[in-house]
């Protein structure tokens, strides 16, 4: 009996670590969707660029984890804003399908541009953390798990405060609700959209660096699968809803780790998309989605 509950607790720990990473990526999907109703399919690849910047910082520049994380987040934020300005902004009044196809194009551009510049070779992250393993009975807790969960909790807390109380956060909420009314308040809609891309991309970069240090290897196509799963997480939580992305990410991580834990690890990707299908059939607005009732 003991071993079964140990196994469950172990999978919960693994699931939370993995889910934290999905949640960080899902936040970018959901924020961008919230503000311009675009599924930014290049988001997973932006995460990949963040991972490479982190890798460059820890290898070539020999930086430790926190400075590498901050630098990766900063430059990836710039990349996110640049992509928005060049690829999406000219299509602000185009059909949603045109923008979506452009996002897929940006995704391929980053993937194969990455292969061209960085070579398809898999790179290894240096050991940024001590390989300490904490053992409680049969349950093991890696140093990396602690770092992932802690980093995610801190970033989410900062994000929540920014969205709720800061000037740019209020502007983001106003723009995502009603762009025209927001500009009548004196809010610059374009700058607010840029800020949203910057914040979403920097969170993806954090996820990329965490994947790098946790799983050790990175490659130019590493963004595809986590990107898709984070998208599922965002839909599961309710696309456009920030707490939804956090919950959706954690649920995805837990499901995946339990599917692996009971011996179906080859099925774990299928499980993710099975969830997507179920959500779309049963509750397309997602777990936290609700129709805001508004009196007129």
């Amino acid at each position, binding site marked *: 009996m003991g071993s079964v509950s140990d196994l469950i607790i172990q999978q919960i720990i693994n699931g939370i670590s993995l889910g934290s990473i999905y949640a960080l990526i899902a936040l970018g999907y959901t924020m961008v969707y919230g503000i311009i109703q675009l599924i930014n399919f290049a988001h997973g690849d932006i995460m990949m660029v963040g991972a490479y910047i982190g890798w460059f910082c820890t290898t070539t520049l020999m930086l430790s984890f926190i400075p590498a994380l901050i630098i990766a987040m900063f430059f990836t934020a710039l990349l996110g804003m640049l992509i928005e300005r060049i690829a999406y902004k000219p299509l602000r009044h185009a059909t949603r399908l045109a923008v979506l196809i452009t996002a897929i194009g940006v995704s391929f551009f980053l993937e194969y541009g990455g292969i061209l510049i960085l070579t398809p070779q898999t790179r290894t992250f240096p050991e940024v953390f001590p390989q300490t393993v904490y053992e409680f009975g049969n349950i093991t807790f890696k140093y990396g798990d602690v770092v992932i969960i802690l980093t995610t909790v801190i970033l989410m807390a900062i994000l929540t405060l920014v969205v709720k109380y800061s000037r740019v956060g209020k*502007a983001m909420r106003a723009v995502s*609700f009603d762009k025209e009314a927001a500009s009548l*308040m004196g809010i610059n809609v374009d700058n607010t959209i840029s800020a949203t891309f910057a914040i979403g991309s920097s969170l993806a970069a954090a996820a990329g660096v965490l994947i790098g240090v946790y799983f050790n290897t990175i490659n130019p196509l590493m963004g595809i699968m986590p990107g898709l799963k984070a998208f599922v997480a965002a839909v599961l939580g309710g696309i456009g809803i920030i707490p939804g992305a956090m919950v959706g990410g954690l649920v995805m991580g837990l499901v995946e780790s339990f599917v692996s834990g009971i011996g179906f690890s080859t099925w774990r990707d299928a499980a993710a998309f099975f969830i997507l299908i179920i959500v779309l059939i049963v509750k397309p607005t997602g777990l936290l989605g609700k129709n805001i009732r508004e009196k*007129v």
Partner: protein
Amino acid sequence: MLSLNNVHVYYGAIHALKGISFEVNEGEIVTLIGSNGAGKSTCLKTISGLLRPKEGTMQFKGIDLTKVSAPEVVTKGISQVPEGRRIFANMSVSENLDLGAYQRRDKEGIKQDIERVYTLFPRLKERRRQLAGTLSGGEQQMLAMGRALMSKPQLLLLDEPSMGLAPLLVKQIFEIIVEINSLGTTILLVEQNARMALSVASRAYVLETGKIVLSGDAKELMESDEIQKAYLGG
């Protein structure tokens, strides 16, 4: 204070404003009346910078408004209460007011003005923590007006403030409009409820399919046969 001269505005191929000219002097309440689709809202949207005139000039206190973007128009001293109120339903009443002061940095002044708005609309103070979407129609109109006042406008543009409100509430809203004006804000009021609008305004312009067809003193227009027939049901 504000003058439009031969302004033409298009929605794609639709010629919505066909050479509009009018002016608003400091301290006045001026109203634009006309039926649905006459171009009243288009006019306000153009002044606010949401639409660009294809031809014509627009001046506000010596500034050429045709080149000013929507968010900057607010900093120049023009604020709009849009048609349908357009409050941020997913935010609280006080957050909506904060957004009205988005361009301002003087924290103390903002605090004072929030109190001023609460004195003008005591109902908003009672409900300041409530989500704006849960307010009644009249309260939402009050919030939209309070929010617009938070930018300390010299000129307030009001688009159909009576829309969808019970007669008693309409009366109350118009009393407040007069009060806002007496406190020193110039008002440009767009209305379908011509009787109400003419009773508070000093001057009026009548819009029909993108053109101004009549203008003059509000009291005189109220008496005129044409207005009686077309807009006052008399």
